[in-house]
């Protein structure tokens, strides 16, 4: 336990001691038209490692779902509600639109069209922020308060809230990353030759999107199988 604590403290110290200078370097102290140069770590490698860890996380969560599902002759179990997919369809449309928009924005940046790039980036952030608002502000309260499906209503309910909860948290992280990217974009820190962070953020966003497609198929459309 003591050794674990020592390793953790050492890791946190080494990881955070440069935060102040890194943040001030990336946000505050650089003139608008200054390119940052190459990212100190290969951003492609970084995002590939992040995606790999996310794959392991969601792989475990989906593994749990299928392991439970395999124990039942019929799935969803008897008594589970057929979920109305109206909000889920809107969320799917939001994610498709935002994925197309960010690809377009990156393309505009590569062409050197800064205004179009910024418009696309802000549009993606706005669309992205609508997703958790719909999920945590409308769908979850509606399902729980109307007693349609709660985390305590059997295996289907527990799986539903676990999977959509983990995914929703990742969407929130994606929106935060986009807000940070927006700030840097409006400071003029991205150029046709320096946009690795934007592409890394968009790759993460596309990954979150693809996980949602699995959730939409398994949970919302899957809830209709019994009916």
């Amino acid at each position, binding site marked *: 336990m003591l050794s674990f604590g020592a390793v953790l403290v050492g890791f946190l110290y080494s990881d955070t001691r440069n935060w102040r200078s890194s943040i001030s370097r990336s946000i505050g102290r650089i003139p608008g038209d200054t390119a940052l140069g190459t990212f100190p770590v290969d951003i*492609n490698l970084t995002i590939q490692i992040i995606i790999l860890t996310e794959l392991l996380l969601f792989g475990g969560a989906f593994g749990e779902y299928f392991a439970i599902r395999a124990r039942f002759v019929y799935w969803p179990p008897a008594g589970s509600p057929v979920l109305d997919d109206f909000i889920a369809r809107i969320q799917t*449309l939001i*994610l498709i639109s935002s994925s197309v928009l960010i690809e377009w924005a990156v393309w505009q940046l590569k062409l050197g069209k800064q205004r179009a790039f910024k418009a696309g980036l802000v549009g993606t952030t706005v669309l992205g922020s609508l997703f958790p608002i719909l999920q945590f502000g409308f769908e979850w309260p509606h399902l729980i308060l109307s007693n349609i499906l709660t985390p305590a209503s059997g295996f289907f309910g527990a799986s539903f809230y676990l999977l959509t909860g983990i995914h929703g948290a990742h969407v929130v992280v994606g929106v935060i990353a986009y807000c940070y990217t927006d700030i840097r974009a409006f400071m003029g820190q991205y150029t046709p030759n320096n946009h690795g962070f934007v592409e890394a953020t*968009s790759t993460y966003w596309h990954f979150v999107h693809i996980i949602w*497609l*699995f959730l*939409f198929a398994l949970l*919302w459309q*899957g809830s209709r199988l019994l009916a």
Partner: protein
Amino acid sequence: MARESAFGLKLGDFGIFVIFTAIYAAGTLGLPKLALLTYQVKVGEIPTAFVAIFGMPAVLGLTLGQFIANLGVEASPIASLTPIFSFIGLLVIYYSRKFSTLAGCIVYILITSAWLTFLLPTVSQVPQSAVAYSVLAGQFIAVIIGYLGYLLVRKSMLNKHETANEPKATVSS
């Protein structure tokens, strides 16, 4: 910044891959089938011809989209083989794009229709003769709509390319 993988794909292609996955999966699961001339047309099949423009990421994306769409419907385990046949058909479009995308699309229609004509009577006990014609017509309408869209996009891309290459007029005094 983009780095090529062992399959010749770049990290930047991930967006195209996901967009095509989403179009197929959401177009099949989230949208009702279009009723055209009494035939049921799957919206997800419409972007098939765009493989000729977007390449391998679109091929893989549409295949994964079909896999995801199959997760949301009750079907026998044999139905999970459907993406394999689509993948073969999409590869034909991809490799035939240099001489005839239309020929590739027709081969795709034939491959997927033949598979579905075999599959549907197996999983739902409908007569094969009733299925064959409607499946072929539905696939044909969907893919040809997409092919027309592909021609429009290709034409606009060629126009832009020609405009960009035109010599700029010089003003003489």
